[in-house]
């Protein structure tokens, strides 16, 4: 019963407390083509008050964006990010994995201690691997929650990211050069 499987996928996604990968869905919904079921469900909910979306390979139901005004009432406002926080988040999203020094090189200013903490506390940024460079600095990257929170299917949905990458503007080597010029200038002083 194909339809039975689609029902199962629907129920599992509804019950889930977080976005689910296809594998996670399969482990609960049992045998059947999960992708086919997801595609059908996505179509079925199109234009409804609820929609099925994929974020970074994870699937979830959420309310339709155009109904936001009805639902926002009574809810706590999302804590507003500082300008530095927004900028830092964008830089990490475009350049990940990226070190703190590289973030500072792009912004041309030191990053306040709290800025990265706030992003990590929100669950949007996580420490990633250490860079294989002198001092082995820690790098930072975005999380699946970042994609989900901002409604991104993947990082490729970030505007212009492919162009920037093609232009070589997202290369760590390029950033390192900027950093170097800043440091050299400081030492010249």
């Amino acid at each position, binding site marked *: 019963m194909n339809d039975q499987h689609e029902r199962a996928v629907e129920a*599992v996604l509804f*019950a889930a407390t977080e976005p689910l990968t296809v594998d996670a869905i399969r482990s609960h919904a049992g045998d059947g083509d999960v992708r086919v079921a997801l595609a059908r469900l996505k179509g079925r909910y199109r234009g409804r008050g609820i929609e099925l979306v994929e974020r970074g390979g994870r699937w979830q139901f*959420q309310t339709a964006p155009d109904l936001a005004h009805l639902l926002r009432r009574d809810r706590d406002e999302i804590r507003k990010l500082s300008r530095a926080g927004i900028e830092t988040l964008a830089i990490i999203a475009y350049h990940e994995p990226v070190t703190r020094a590289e973030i500072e090189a*792009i912004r041309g200013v030191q990053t306040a201690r709290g800025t990265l903490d706030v992003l990590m506390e929100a669950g949007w940024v996580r420490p990633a691997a250490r860079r294989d460079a002198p001092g082995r600095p820690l790098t930072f990257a975005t999380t699946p929650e970042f994609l989900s929170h*901002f409604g991104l299917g993947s990082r490729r949905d970030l505007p*212009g990211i492919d162009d920037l990458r093609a232009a070589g503007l997202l290369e760590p080597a390029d950033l390192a050069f900027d950093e170097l*010029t800043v440091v050299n200038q400081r030492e010249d*002083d």
Partner: protein
Amino acid sequence: MNGVPEQLTLDLDGFEGPLDLLLSLARAQKVDLREISILDLVEQYLAHIDEARVLQLDVAADYLVMAAWLAYLKSALLLPREPEVEQDADDLALRLQMRLERLELMRQAGDWLVARDRIGRDVFTRGAPEGLHVVRKAFWSVEYYDLLSAYGRATARSRPVLHLVPDREVVTLEVALTRLAALLGTVPDWRAIEHFLPVVHGAALRRSALASSFVAALELARQGRADLRQDGPFSPLYLRRTTV
């Protein structure tokens, strides 16, 4: 109280570092960042900093560092055209322009991000999800053999250990000593030790008799009652009563 410096202080405070100030000045030129006049930009920036200096304001070190670097860039750009130097200055100017462009792009991306349909603000996930639960059932596995050998192992640690040594016929040192002392009195001259051994049956008992008699001979020699002689290693051992 002078109103003007305060205003200017605020002016600089409003910027997040020198790059931010440069970007704002560049935006004021109202052209695409790629078309920007770096020279104009540099002069505006330096004028800004100079003004702050004239007014004896504290200018953060970052801004001064950038000012020094821009002053260098300006002079390099204005230098008479020497092929290598010119190339270098143009390259630096291009890099500065690219840095500004990238910062601008990141700013726009940040604005774009926060304007997205965000969960908890614009879209909402299910308010009361039932949740998915994975119940882990542990199945413990033990083989019967492991159970039994574990019992042996465990009980062996606390069971009183009893070592049984099977009874074995031996010629004790006491017997050998008494016999040898008595026999020595009857033999006046050197005799091999075998001569003094009791007649026993079995190779093991014979070895025992030899060993005990040998030790007995050593004991008598220590007491000064017997002399021992051996011509070389493993050659026959001779005994006789000590002659006074």
